[in-house]
């Protein structure tokens, strides 16, 4: 019954975009049917998931599939559920948001394509998160990857979208290759493509190869630092509600893969945890540093996904270290922090992308430098974006703080005892502190420059508020963020169960021990909110009668213009300067010199260090070299070709015994 409902949800989602295809291009009926089907499908999915998590629920489905080695086998366990819930929340909200953001009448050419693949990617992710067979998993993985490509290239008339789509396609298929090798090796060890039960795999030999293939393939999808190359461009190019789904939910399938894969192993070598921890720290710090250097609001948010994936990976690394050194507290705190941060990032990153979409919708530009003063014209969008910004910086009283707090706790719990490799987990704490500080700087910049101050350009001064269909999803997500932040104990049981699935050795550890302080966090978050409300109410009442006709004090200068405000480049310049070794920022413009200086400008541009500075030049070099080689080898003389044949034959004779 439960799994039937669940599968109905999947099918409804999968088919949600098809009725629109049969309707005329200008008709708006297709988008209404789409929203209704996605809503209904998600509702079925949520109810199905909840029912199968109930103590007596049957959560597995096994159907034969006429492919050698494959079976259509699904199962819903708490670990899958942690990833399913954000999906079932964000997918329908994005569909509603799309009504206002990407209406069919304004986008007759690509509206139907967008909705078709939006539904397909949703269904593919649900399948992927519950698959228990390697081939089914790969099938769902490819369906997801390809629909992702069509979402990214929705506006395929724009060259940057096409470029982002191609880079994405190359990256995702490189990752898939690794995954195919992974499942082939897994089949070799287990004898079938069915997922092995938890804690049944040995770590040596092929086991290690499987782990590192998974780290590469899943890390590519998740956007872990050196593998993140496709992410910023792709998330910037897609329509905002599709970006929200890609960034908030899709990249988490990589995390899911890593978590599921590591649950198979019986014992974890210490080096794995340390490698994962180091990758997380690099992703986190460099991701946020690159984000500060961006001036395109969606690229900036995309780099924050790299950062947050880093934070999640830090939690996973702590949990792995805890498993290899037999410290259950580290395992529980690390994995529940990582899982909760996965959920949280899904919520606040979608919220921020919706907010950014509303801003782009209103001003027609993605450049932060042209905005300003939007809070007056877009009150609700501003409030929701501010909430999302507080949450993503990990500040109380919102949800980001709770998950980061769990990861900190995990790191600090490695303190007691003698010096050992497991104490490297400690370094997650200061890394998180640095990430938190940088994220704060970044969101002060974004919110301050976009929503506060004076409009810098005409378009920002004429911005219009977002329609209700776009405001509602933001408000729902803001409430979800606040709910986890203010009453975090409500999610603790699910986290505990998911952690137990991941590492069955945790079972004797009760909820009472490490997650028990969550109610305290909740209570303090409430009192913080209350105190701020009281102080804010107090000062607001005092200021009610104050005249609001003074201009901002310009230190005696009487003709200020909005252009004198701090810009995105100038705000980030100090921090970007500190990270100039890693960022390779290009600075354009002359310093002002002399008593009568010439007109001068300053701008900075930060390319992606891995993609633009390493991979693309390397690819160009290889192409050049291959061209030269081809001209040399394929030179048109028949005698040379005969020589090649003869040489090949000789080599073959020598090789074959």
């Amino acid at each position, binding site marked *: 019954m439960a799994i039937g409902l669940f599968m109905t949800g999947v099918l409804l989602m999968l088919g949600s975009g098809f009725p629109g295809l049969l309707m005329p291009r200008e008709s708006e009926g297709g988008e209404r049917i789409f929203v209704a089907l996605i809503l209904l499908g998600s509702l079925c999915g949520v109810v199905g998931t909840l029912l199968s998590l109930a103590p007596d629920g049957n959560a597995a489905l096994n159907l034969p599939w006429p492919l050698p080695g494959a079976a259509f086998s699904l199962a819903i366990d708490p670990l899958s559920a942690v990833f399913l819930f954000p999906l079932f929340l964000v997918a329908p909200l994005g569909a509603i948001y799309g009504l206002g953001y990407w209406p069919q009448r304004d986008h007759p050419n690509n509206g139907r394509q967008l909705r078709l693949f939006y539904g397909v990617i949703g269904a593919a992710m649900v399948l992927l998160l519950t698959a228990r067979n390697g081939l089914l998993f790969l099938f769902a993985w490819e369906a997801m990857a390809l629909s992702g490509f069509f979402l990214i290239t929705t506006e395929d008339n724009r060259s940057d979208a096409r470029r982002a789509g191609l880079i994405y396609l190359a990256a995702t298929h490189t990752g898939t290759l690794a995954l195919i090798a992974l499942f082939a090796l897994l089949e070799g060890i287990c004898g079938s493509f069915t997922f092995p039960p938890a804690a049944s795999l040995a770590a040596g030999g092929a086991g290690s190869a499987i782990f590192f293939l998974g780290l590469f393939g899943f890390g590519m999808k998740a956007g872990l630092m050196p593998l993140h190359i496709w992410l910023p461009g792709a998330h910037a190019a897609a329509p905002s509600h599709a970006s929200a789904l890609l960034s908030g939910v899709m990249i988490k399938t990589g995390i899911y893969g890593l978590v599921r894969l590591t649950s198979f192993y019986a014992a974890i070598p210490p080096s794995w945890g340390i490698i994962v921890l180091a990758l997380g720290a690099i992703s986190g710090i460099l991701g946020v540093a690159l984000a500060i250097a961006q001036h395109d609001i969606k690229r900036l948010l995309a780099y924050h996904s790299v950062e947050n994936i880093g934070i999640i990976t830090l939690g996973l690394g702590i949990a792995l270290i805890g498993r290899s050194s037999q410290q259950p507290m580290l395992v529980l705190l690390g994995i529940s922090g990582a899982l909760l941060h996965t959920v949280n990032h899904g919520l606040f990153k979608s919220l921020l992308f919706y907010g950014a979409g509303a801003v782009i919708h209103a001003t027609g530009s993605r450049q932060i430098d042209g905005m300003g*003063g939007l809070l007056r014209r877009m009150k609700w969008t501003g409030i929701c974006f501010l909430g999302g910004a507080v949450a993503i910086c990990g500040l*109380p009283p919102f949800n980001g703080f709770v998950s*980061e707090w769990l990861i900190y706790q995990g790191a600090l719990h490695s303190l007691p005892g003698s010096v050992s490799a497991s104490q490297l987990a400690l370094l997650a704490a200061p890394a998180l502190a640095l990430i938190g500080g940088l994220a704060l700087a970044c969101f002060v910049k974004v919110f301050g420059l976009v929503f506060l101050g004076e409009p810098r350009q005409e378009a920002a001064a004429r911005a219009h508020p977002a329609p209700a269909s776009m405001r509602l999803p933001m408000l729902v997500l803001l409430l979800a963020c606040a709910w986890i932040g203010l009453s975090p104990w409500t999610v603790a049981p699910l986290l505990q169960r998911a952690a137990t699935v991941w590492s069955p050795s945790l079972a004797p550890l009760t909820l009472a021990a490490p997650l028990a*302080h969550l109610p305290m966090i909740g209570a303090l978050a409430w009192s913080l909110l209350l105190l701020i409300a009281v102080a804010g109410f107090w000062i*607001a009442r005092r200021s009610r009668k104050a005249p609001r006709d003074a201009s*901002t004090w310009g230190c005696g200068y009487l003709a200020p213009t909005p252009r004198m*405000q*701090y810009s995105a480049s100038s*705000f980030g310049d*100090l921090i970007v300067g500190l990270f100039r070794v890693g960022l390779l920022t290009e600075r354009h413009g002359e310093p002002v010199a002399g008593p009568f200086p010439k007109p001068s400008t300053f701008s900075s541009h930060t390319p992606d260090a891995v993609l633009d500075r390493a991979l693309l030049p390397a690819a160009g070099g290889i192409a050049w070299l291959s061209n030269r080689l081809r001209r040399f080898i394929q030179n048109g003389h028949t005698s040379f070709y005969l020589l090649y044949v003869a040489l090949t034959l000789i080599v073959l004779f020598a090789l074959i015994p």
Partner: protein
Amino acid sequence: MAGFLLHLCLLLLFAPLLQGVITRTKALFAGRIGAPLLQPYFDLRRLWGKGFVLSRTTTWVFLAGPAVALTVPVLASLLLPFGGLPAPISFEGDLILFVYLFGLGRFFTALAALDTGSSFEGMGAAREVTFSCLAEPTILFSLIVLARISGGLSLNSLFGPHLAGAWGTGAAAPLGLILVCLFVVLLVENSRIPFDDPNTHLELTMIHEVMVLDHSGPALGMILYGASLKLMVLGALLVRLAFPWQTGHILGDVLVFLGGLLVLAILIGVVESTMARLRLVRVPQILIGTVLISIFALVLVLRST
């Protein structure tokens, strides 16, 4: 409940006096008599009675800044032992909440600065967020050192009675190192010379003060009061670390704590009088230096205990 009220009374009543002591110390060093010790209280009272001047550019965020800046130190102080007085609220991991609460305060203060649209305040906000993200790893490393020495994860146990004994053991060297680190962080976070100058507003090297240029009347009062509360809360960490003695009697503990705070205020005054402000490019260098010192302290404490 009594401890809770005593905690709040100590914080709310005593904090502005520290500013008075600092100002007085600086005046004495300069050969002046200086303002009365209670001048900060008079200032706050006068500011609270005044009206507002609000720029037409600003929105509600401009007023949220002072509200958060005042709220945050009050809540943070409840997690902190005041000398021998245990914290009214304490649980494992509250040290993270303590650090992040100040992050929230900084977030809203910087946003309030950007809300005015002034280039000066934008500059101040950019500097504030840059320097504090460098200060944050130092705080975390220092707290980790203390956590290792105490074996607990709540501020109450970090700054518990064991500190008096720890100074006599092998932990003395790391404790001394993090005392230096935390003093630097205190000066940075409270915008003191040599990192910032709380008295001038206009020089382009200013950080915190330039962010609150446009605040006036009760809003400025809230910011000043919030700043003095923050000084006392962060100072309480240092005082407990440097004067860990406990008399066993509540009155004695309060006196040791308040006396320690006064000594700290005088020390800040001396530093401000005898040092010049650093060039702005030197500030990150010093902050990275303190990160390194705190890492060194961590290595020492991991090896020795």
